[in-house]
Structure formats: C-alpha cells, structure tokens
C-alpha cells in the first residue's frame, strides 16, 4: 500500500518559533507537494519539488521555505511562525503524470 507519512498530526507552536514539518513517502515518487487547507479557501499550494534539491514556489510561498535533500523526504519550514499560519498542512507525492497521494495532514496551531 502506498504511503505518505507526515511527522505530526497535531502541533502547537509559539509565535516566532522556527517550525519544521516533515513528510516521507515510500513510493519513489519524483514529485512532492506542500499544501495548506483553510475553511472557505480550499487547498492552496505552498511549494512543490520535482526532484532532489529542486523546488518551485506555489501560490502562497511567503513565510515558508522547503528542503528536499533526499528523494523520499520533503520538509516545510516556517522560519518565524505567525498566528496566520495556523492551518491544516497536507503533504502529497506523485510520479510523473499520475495521481498524487496525500498524507493525513498536520494541524498546526500557532499561539
């Protein structure tokens, strides 16, 4: 069974903290994605990566960075967390021209 695993289901952080969200996939997929999901706004793409060390900005990259040092792992970094980054974060992976598989999500609360 295909698997995308996010390191935490729930996370509470303080304003100004540096936050790391980790995502690991076991399908040898080239593409990996980070989305955030908010009520009324749907799924919005933050960053995606189509190969190791390669990344491209999505629609809302401000306040975020990413790292992909190994093919199976894609990290989302909040350099200085703010309350408006409280959200559900979803990681996904896909092979070229195929469907994406999602992790279970991380619900991040910044206080």
């Amino acid at each position, binding site marked *: 069974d295909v698997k995308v695993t996010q390191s935490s289901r729930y996370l509470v952080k303080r304003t100004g903290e540096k936050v790391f969200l980790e995502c690991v996939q076991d399908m040898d997929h080239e593409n990996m994605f980070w989305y955030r999901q908010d009520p009324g706004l749907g799924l919005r793409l933050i960053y995606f990566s189509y190969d190791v060390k390669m990344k491209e900005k999505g629609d809302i990259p401000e306040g975020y960075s990413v790292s992909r040092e190994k093919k199976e792992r894609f990290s989302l970094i909040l350099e200085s967390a703010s309350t408006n980054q409280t959200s559900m974060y979803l990681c*996904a992976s896909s092979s070229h*021209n195929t469907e994406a598989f999602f992790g279970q999500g991380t619900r991040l609360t910044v206080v």
Partner: protein
Amino acid sequence: EDQVTQSPEALRLQEGESSSLNCSYTVSGLRGLFWYRQDPGKGPEFLFTLYSAGEEKEKERLKATLTKKESFLHITAPKPEDSATYLCAPQSSLGAQKLVFGQGTRLTINP
C-alpha cells in the same frame, strides 16, 4: 492562469437521492483531471483520473465524466457513508506538474 470552480459549495441529499457535482476548469492544455474524496480531519483520497473529453470512470455509486470545460461527479443512490468533501484538480500539460484544486463540494447524505 489556471482556474477551477466547483459547484455547489455544499449539497445535502436524502439517502437514495441521486445528484451531480460540477467542476468547471480553465487550464492551458489538460493533461488530466483528478477527483478526490476528503473526510473531515484527513488527507484527500484519490478516486479517479480522466484524461480526455468523453471519458467516463466508475467506482461503486460514483461516476466521473469529462468534457472540454467541465467534469461531473454523478452520485447514484447515495448512502450516508458517501458523505464527504469532493475535490477536483485539473493538471496542465504545460510547465510543472502541480495540481490546482477547486474549493470542493461538501456532500451530506441524510439517512
């Protein structure tokens, strides 16, 4: 710019009452259109991929169809367990392989 609009935003049906969900899209060269189901607090789960106008895919009580500008998800004789948010995501054949999601249709099936 790629755009996708789903309607209605929310739909409440009685068990056994068939209906359709709409996904209207504008993309530069459609590579494929994906349908997902999402339960509360979970990541989206892949349902179908459609590649060309006229194509249809079926799974249990769900059938997805595709035209050049729209996709429909038909639900026949739904059951309460079909209650979920349904998301569509067209993928452009130009440029990077990112997925842009619609805001989803929240479907509730009452017993």
